[in-house]
């Protein structure tokens, strides 16, 4: 049986852990709100750009940009977006598991770029083709860096280092739920248009011309696609952390309750023992 003091120390330890988890939960909640705001502010741009792109592509069947061209080669680059930090439940674990399985299915020629420290930590020691990694990205999430990564990916693609690029990231569904997503990044995904969309095609003036505009738009589309994935991942991470810390705080509460009970029982036992000792001492004195 643990002594009173031991139990007291444990209660204290659990309480201070709970303080930390509670604080982390609040921080995650605040960061989540910011992350969601960022997603919301990126949305109108992404929507409009996509609309324009679809419309421009519907005017021409030619492949005007090498980034649109489907290649026969099977070399795939996987871009994995994980978090920089842990303590967010199964956020990273699920993602890394999915990435590992996916990489395996692609064979040994597959290459990998890691965004986020957690993915890098795992894959640097594994037998994979890690060509580049970006860590410490999410602390100060910044669109310039995202664009830089896109430039790096596009450059390698144009140099034919790989024939297809895929992004794996966690999509933010709700605070409780993240979905591991595997999305094609390059070549550009061409959406099939419905018939009525085609019929409402307008006679636009294109300045300078469709091809130049497409060449201008496509890199922008890629930039926003990666940026959006990173924002989604960031929001999902904060959501996952919030939930995980909520659970941890709850577990700590349960533990404290249990320990309190134990403490009280031990205290009572000690008091009973003491009284018994006094009483029996008094009895002994009376008899003598």
């Amino acid at each position, binding site marked *: 049986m643990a002594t009173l003091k031991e139990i007291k120390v444990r209660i204290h330890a659990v309480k201070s852990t709970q303080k930390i988890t509670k604080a982390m939960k609040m921080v995650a909640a605040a960061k989540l709100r910011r992350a969601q705001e*960022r997603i919301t*502010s*990126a949305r*109108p*741009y*992404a929507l*409009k*750009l996509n609309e*324009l792109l679809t419309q*421009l592509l519907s005017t021409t069947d030619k492949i005007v940009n090498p980034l649109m061209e489907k290649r026969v080669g099977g070399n795939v680059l996987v871009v994995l977006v994980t978090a920089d930090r842990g303590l967010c439940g199964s956020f990273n674990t699920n993602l890394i598991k999915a990435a590992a399985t996916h990489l395996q299915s692609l064979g040994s020629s597959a290459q990998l770029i890691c965004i986020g420290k957690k993915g890098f930590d795992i894959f640097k020691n594994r037998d994979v083709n890690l060509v580049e990694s970006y860590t410490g990205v999410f602390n100060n999430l910044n*669109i310039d860096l995202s664009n830089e990564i896109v430039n790096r990916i596009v450059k390698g693609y144009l140099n034919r280092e790989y024939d297809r690029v895929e992004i794996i990231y966690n999509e933010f569904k709700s605070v409780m739920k993240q979905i591991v997503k595997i999305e094609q990044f390059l070549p550009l995904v061409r959406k099939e248009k419905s018939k009525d969309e085609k019929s409402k095609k*307008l*006679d*636009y*003036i*294109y*300045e*300078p011309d469709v091809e*130049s*505009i497409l060449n*201008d*738009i496509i890199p*922008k589309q890629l*930039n*926003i696609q990666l*940026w959006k994935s990173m924002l989604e991942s960031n929001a999902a991470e904060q959501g996952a952390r919030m939930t995980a810390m909520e659970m941890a705080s709850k577990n700590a509460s349960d533990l404290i309750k249990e320990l309190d009970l134990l403490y009280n029982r031990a205290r009572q036992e000690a008091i009973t023992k003491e009284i018994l000792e006094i009483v029996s001492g008094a009895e002994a004195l009376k008899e003598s």
Partner: protein
Amino acid sequence: MEKLLDLEIVSPTAKVFSGKIKTIIAPGSLGGFQVLFNHAPLVSTLNVGKLKLVDENDKEKLYAISGGILEVNNNKVSVLAETIETPEELNIERIKAAIARYEDILHRKEEGTDPEQIRLLLKLEYNRLSLLNKLGLN
């Protein structure tokens, strides 16, 4: 009825402007152009330059834009800007410092830098500076 256009300016990080305007003047890649009421449908790429609009209260607004795309359709104008700033957001000290730094890099041909890239960045900073100069805010 007043002849107004709906305008929306968006960038990847923010919705910059949304409202009714009388006209907009944009730095098109084939030269600057102005959009007035009942302009024909148009899609144009934009250069680095100044975007000027006149809102419904006849107030002028100026922005420094680093390129983008402008679409006009049925009196709705959408501007997709790469980056866009109002004069209030710009800091003259920062711009001057950035210009000096980039000039220095170009001058010394610093290793590991792409001169094309630096020249582009320099162009953006000069654009911002000229916007402030125009407004006499420097």
